[in-house]
């Protein structure tokens, strides 16, 4: 069967219960919003293929249950992820404070070089806001993670959040490939060399891109 994409990235959405992980994913994959969502039990996923600088990138995005009880199940899926979205709800102080715990969770369970991003969701609900944008930015600086405020409901920044994360993963991946194959990177045959590199899976990263 012909491959319909150049890269496959596995992404993960984590964060407290009710912050809008499923809504963010639904906005990104179906470009729609549904007020009547059911709570996620266990783990779910959606797929969308995007075009990134002329490359077809297939995003396989895993959505997890937020409640702590599910953590034994969900952390098992941190390992294979190349990018993780940490989501909090700007109208819920507690969900913001918990981002630190979620980061610790990533450090314990995910690959060391996983790309991360913090999303402050529900920024359309200005009247109910409990966490200022500045505090979000501050936290992001502290952990050196990119940050953006989103609204799945108003379709604000959801698209660009996923594109940013995907672009960062792609850049990191290509840098790795160049590092392990410096001659190819400088010559005009870069593209072909890069493909050859992909064919023999040396690291888990290149193995993923093969799929």
């Amino acid at each position, binding site marked *: 069967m012909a491959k319909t994409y150049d890269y496959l990235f596995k992404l993960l959405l984590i964060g407290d219960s*009710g912050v809008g992980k499923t809504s963010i994913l639904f906005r990104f994959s179906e470009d*729609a919003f549904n*007020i009547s969502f*059911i709570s996620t039990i266990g783990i779910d996923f959606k797929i969308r293929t995007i075009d990134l600088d002329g490359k077809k990138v297939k995003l396989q995005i895993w959505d997890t249950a937020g409640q702590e009880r599910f953590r*034994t*199940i969900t952390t098992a899926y941190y390992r294979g992820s190349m990018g993780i979205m940490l989501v909090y709800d700007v109208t819920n102080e507690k969900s913001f404070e918990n981002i630190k715990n979620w980061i610790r969770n990533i450090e314990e369970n995910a690959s060391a070089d996983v790309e991360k991003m913090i999303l402050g969701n529900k920024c359309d609900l200005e009247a109910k806001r409990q966490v200022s944008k500045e505090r979000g930015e501050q936290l992001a600086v502290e952990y050196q993670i990119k940050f953006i405020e989103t609204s799945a409901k108003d379709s604000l920044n959801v698209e660009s959040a996923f594109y940013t994360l995907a672009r960062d993963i792609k850049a990191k991946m290509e840098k790795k490939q160049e590092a392990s194959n410096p001659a190819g990177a400088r010559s005009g045959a870069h593209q072909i060399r890069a493909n050859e590199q992909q064919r023999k899976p040396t690291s888990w990263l290149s193995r993923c891109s093969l799929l």
Partner: protein
Amino acid sequence: MSLQKSVKSAGGDRSEQGDTTSICSSVTTQPDRHGFFGGAQYSPEPKRTVSPSTILKREQKWLRMLNNWEAFMSKNYKKVRERCIPASVRPKAWLYLCGGQLLLEKHPNEYEELLQAPGDPKCMEDIRKDLHRQFPYHEMFIREEGLGQQELFSVLKAYSVLNPKVGYFQAQAPVAAFLLMHMPAVLQRDGDILHALLRRTAPAVHRHLVKHKVEPVLYATEWFLCALTRTLPWDSLLRVWDCFLCEGVKVLFKAALVILAGALGPAKVRKRACGLCETLEVLRHPPEGILGEDYLMYHMQRLNLTEEDFEFEHQRQTARRRAMPNRSGS
């Protein structure tokens, strides 16, 4: 019934909230016979009819049984599973089957007392966050602060106060507080048992799942934790729960095995589902036919799995889990 009131105003509330957002599945103003206005479990077609006299006969039989419950259950409880419980008797029958009647007689005021207690604030907050996220298209739950959501809150709160160690677990909500308290480690073992049984009942499907690394936690978590309430059409669900309350959790395993074999049984489906995500997609939306009441009940029977088979796998998988210190979960 007091529920009727919330139905009438439901349509108005929805459009008020819905004007700035797109509602994805179609929502009607007329609920189906189970009270759904839309969503995956909405089934507008009328059920095939059973003659009124047959229904009447069944009802009388059940009422007789319920009046002599002790004697009946000790003598021939197996008969319970062979008969579909008539809708009108079902609430009472389920109360007896799950032992609720007995407890109710023993502690007549306990429920009210539990509701008076303050409750753990973290638990109460978690419950509130989930009240509208269970059956959003059902007439009982469609209205915020409506009766259905209030009652759900009460049941979940009462349980969390009664059993503070378990407290509130998100999977309780879809089936309210009455539920098998599976914790993740147990769940993983249940997944192993399911796969081991599948290997016997549908080897080709089992091979396919192993090949594509489709682990049970990925598709069976919701099936088991919500006791199929989010998976089956309502008629099938009621029927499966009739059995579930009689025979216990192995009914859920049997239903899961039938769904797996039904969905991935055809070789051409397996060929098309040539990866982890593709396979999960098939299992997330199994063909409607195999979720139907008759198909499901018939094939669950035909699996021919005995009490001993379950016991054997249970022992074996428990021992196997115990031998893997790093993966034992909790």
